[in-house]
């Protein structure tokens, strides 16, 4: 069964197409990496699936997923770390689906937040200001927020950029756990070896899909050369 079915989808900003010719499905419960060079439209695809961008043409069908059942992890730079909130408050934003705008957080919610902090190894950081966290710690906090969101589909935009290997492996263990629970997961990534180790499926992009399927087939030398060829063709036509 398909969690997301893309039908001739084109996405972009202010009428400018960033990625197009997207046809295919992300199966329910699948774990997919989205890879490609800079500017190839990886983040754009995630934003489209998260409902943050309206398709320029084509459409996305979410079969068994409500929009509010999709959790989206923006790139680290999107969070204003100078804003004065504690780690606890940042993480408890993950309660949104349950509590929305107005409903107060209960004692049980409080425990769940603490629990999520423990799971990502930030047990003692609840009262810290987010400005005092390192990049890796901030990313852990955002993963704790994802835990609370308890979503059917999880979209991760460069979750491991600028964080150390230990943290990446720890967070990857969480992702694997979510995968086992049957959630649909997509992650924008750069490290091909990491993708080969952990992600069964891959979508390779260069402003359009170059290959989409089992990771071993997608990350073949031929396909990567095809990406290179597309990039150079675009450069010479520009």
């Amino acid at each position, binding site marked *: 069964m398909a969690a997301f079915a893309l039908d001739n989808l084109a996405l972009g900003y*202010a009428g400018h197409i960033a990625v197009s010719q997207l046809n295919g499905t992300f199966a329910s419960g699948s774990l997919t990496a989205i890879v490609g060079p800079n500017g190839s439209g990886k983040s754009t695809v995630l934003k489209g699936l*998260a*409902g*943050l961008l309206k398709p320029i043409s084509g459409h996305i069908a979410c079969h068994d997923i409500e929009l*509010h059942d*999709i*959790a*989206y992890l*923006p790139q680290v730079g*999107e*969070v*204003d*770390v*100078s*804003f*004065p*909130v504690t780690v606890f*408050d*940042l993480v408890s*934003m993950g309660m*949104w*689906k349950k509590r*929305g*705008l*107005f409903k107060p957080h209960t004692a049980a919610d409080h425990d769940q937040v603490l629990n999520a902090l423990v799971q990502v190894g930030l047990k003692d950081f609840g009262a810290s*200001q987010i*400005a*005092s966290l*390192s990049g890796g710690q901030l990313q852990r906090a955002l993963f704790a*927020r994802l835990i609370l*969101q308890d979503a059917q589909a999880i979209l991760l935009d460069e979750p491991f950029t600028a964080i150390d290997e230990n943290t990446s492996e720890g967070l990857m263990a969480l992702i694997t756990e979510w995968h086992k629970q049957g959630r649909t997961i997509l992650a924008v990534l750069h490290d091909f070896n990491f993708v080969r180790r952990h992600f069964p499926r891959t979508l390779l992009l260069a402003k359009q899909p170059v290959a989409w399927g089992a990771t071993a087939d997608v990350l073949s030398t031929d396909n990567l050369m095809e990406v290179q060829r597309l990039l150079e063709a675009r450069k010479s036509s520009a």
Partner: protein
Amino acid sequence: MTLYDLLIAPFAELVFMRKALVGTVALSVSSCPIGVFMILRRMSLAGDAMSHAILPGVAGAFLMFGLSILPMTIGGLVAGLAVALLAGLVSRNTIQREDSSLAAFYLISLACGVALISARGSSVDLVHILFGTVLALNNQSLVLITGVSSLTLIVLAGVWRALIAECLDPLFLRSVSNFGPVVHFTFLALVVLNLVAGFNALGTLLSVGLMILPAATARFWTVRVETMCLLASLIGVVSGYVGLVLSYHFNIASSPAIILTTGVVYIASLLFSRRDFPSHVERKFS
């Protein structure tokens, strides 16, 4: 001179001083928390721009209806919201960023306002609109200010969680709710509303001061947004009182006296707050 003469007599004996105090207190209570969000969103200067943007609305209403509070308020509100909306629209649909489009529209708006006043009024009118008349607050304006103040606090409490989310992580808010653009616009409307209420008490130029200076001062002392809002309001209220007392005894204009008092508190906080630099600053330079 007794302490009573110094601190209480001006308000006990003179009705206009009492009204001025009520007006500044009511305004501080709502516009200082708004200011906290302005500085946290890096919009401190946008507040200044918005205060100029409301001028043609106020001036136009002034020329049509005279010094009448309701038309001037509505005029200011319309002009302010129009500039905010146009700037937002242009920045979303063109290559222009929000700051440059806001600058463009507020300058056009300000020029319209000044042209309107110079064509029909005297420079006394302009000074009146720009520098306010805190000592000439009538009951009608007091009702307006307290009404705006109450409404602001109610709305702020209602959108609080969403507003924090929108400042902190706007993409997250958009991914969990359709409330993002609504919150943003509601906040801008509150800014304009408070500036319009403030122009009456302090003038378009100085109403921004009461919004931004206490908020920026509170930022020195606390890292909790709730505390920051309360502290900013407190600083606003106390500065309003001290400013009025100073203006009474030293015979200086009341509005600048109030803002200069907030300025003194700001500089004192800058020098004496013992807070270390936030660690993200340390990290950037280490």
